[in-house]
């Protein structure tokens, strides 16, 4: 059994919060650059130029002022013994990163009373037990302009793939300019009500351009991307070819009576950093 002190995780989470918010992942940079090269809308090109310049000049200033809720995914090897309180350690890491990195504190303690917690805690913490003796940490700060445009539908089995396509397109159309397009679209199909939403969020952690392992779903990703970019919404919703940078689908087995479908939208500042301890 490998021992790992929770303070090690705290320190790593703090560093990752700062890096995620100041340095855009390479896959997102590449997708933005490629879409700029393809874009044929005049205003759209200007907007993409601004977005690209912004990520170049960002560090140490955050890329976006909405440095998000800190979504922290931990895949913990079942042969690891974590010494200390893991949840407290993750929150201590988030507090340290958001304070020392001059990141915005955007979390309120209660959804109705709305008092700011002052250090961006608590993290949205997702833990999973996996085989092995390592800990894989992913920090994905998520802004709420895009989170607010996300939706879930409990479709009928009879709705099938057409129902999924319609729901995804409807979600993107309803979102329009609000989630800061070009967007990244995470789609979770199957599972139950809550797992579908989690799948959609996890789909956003995949690098843009990576494809679902099943050819059927990889093709569906391509088809959805094409249909979304034919809507004409464009960067910032001002018209253009580039409405989405990528569509990523994840699936799970589901019940004979259901076809849950969740769409988690991310803005172009699609942040995710992963490290293995």
């Amino acid at each position, binding site marked *: 059994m490998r021992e790992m002190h929770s303070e090690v995780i705290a320190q790593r989470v703090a560093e990752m919060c700062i890096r995620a918010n100041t340095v855009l992942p390479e896959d997102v940079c590449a997708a933005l650059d490629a879409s700029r090269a393809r874009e*044929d*809308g005049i*205003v*759209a090109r*200007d*907007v993409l130029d*601004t*977005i690209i*310049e*912004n*990520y170049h*000049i*960002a560090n*140490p*200033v*955050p*890329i*976006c*002022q*909405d*440095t998000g809720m800190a979504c922290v995914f931990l895949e913990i090897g079942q042969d690891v013994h974590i010494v200390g309180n893991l949840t407290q350690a993750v929150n201590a890491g988030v507090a340290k990163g958001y304070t020392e990195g*001059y*990141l*915005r*504190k*955007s979390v309120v303690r209660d959804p109705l009373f*709305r008092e*700011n917690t*002052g250090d961006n805690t608590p993290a949205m913490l997702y833990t999973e037990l996996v085989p092995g003796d390592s800990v894989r940490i992913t920090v994905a700060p998520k802004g709420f*302009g895009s989170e*607010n445009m996300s939706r879930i539908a409990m479709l009928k089995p009879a709705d099938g793939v057409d129902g999924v396509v319609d729901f995804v397109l409807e979600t993107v159309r309803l979102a*329009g*300019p*609000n*989630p*800061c397009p070009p967007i990244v679209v995470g789609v979770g199909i199957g599972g139950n009500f809550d797992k579908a939403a989690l799948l959609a969020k996890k789909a956003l952690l995949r690098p843009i351009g990576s494809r679902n392992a099943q050819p059927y779903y990889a093709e569906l990703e391509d088809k959805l991307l094409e249909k979304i970019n*034919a*809507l*004409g*919404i*464009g960067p*910032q*919703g*001002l*018209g*253009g*070819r580039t409405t989405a940078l990528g569509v990523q689908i994840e699936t799970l087995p589901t019940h004979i009576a259901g076809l849950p479908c969740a769409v988690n939208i991310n*803005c*172009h*500042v699609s942040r995710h950093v992963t490290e293995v301890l």
Partner: protein
Amino acid sequence: MRIEIAAPLTKETAASLRAGDSVSISGVIYSARDAAHKKLCELIEKGEALPFPIDGSVIYYMGPSPAQPGAVIGAAGPTTSYRMDPYAPRLLSLGSLGMIGKGRRSAEVIEAMKSAGAVYFGAVGGAGALLQRCIRKAEVVCWPELGAEALMRLEVHRLPAIVIIDSLGCDLYKSGPRDYLTQHGGD
């Protein structure tokens, strides 16, 4: 070509702008988002004075990240505007002439803009690091306890924005994608 405009706005300037115009805004603007809007409207309800000159004012829907040592302000891009829709008509009716944000506005806000002769500008969402450079001075006017949501007075120099909805109610979020598809949709 960007049109240089001064803030606060005059009625004449606001009336001259059209949806799709690129502008550079220089002068004094105020930042306020959800919590500050709620408080502003509570002051109005109680008949109390507003904490900034409302006449011709431009309100930026923005809550910055903290300023790093030696900096005026942190990243400072726009937040999504529809959350301010319940409050905006009150401020427009009192003389505010401009709003800067991103995303769609409600029919009620657009009607209030037409009555007031006001303009809605869009800044590029997610370009907070670049927009920070246009802010020369920033000071909290009131409600410091709100943190990033405090009401701030900002001196801006050539803040880039696009006129999204003009004082006639023309909406670039409708015409922009439609025009793009008309020109490029056939392929």
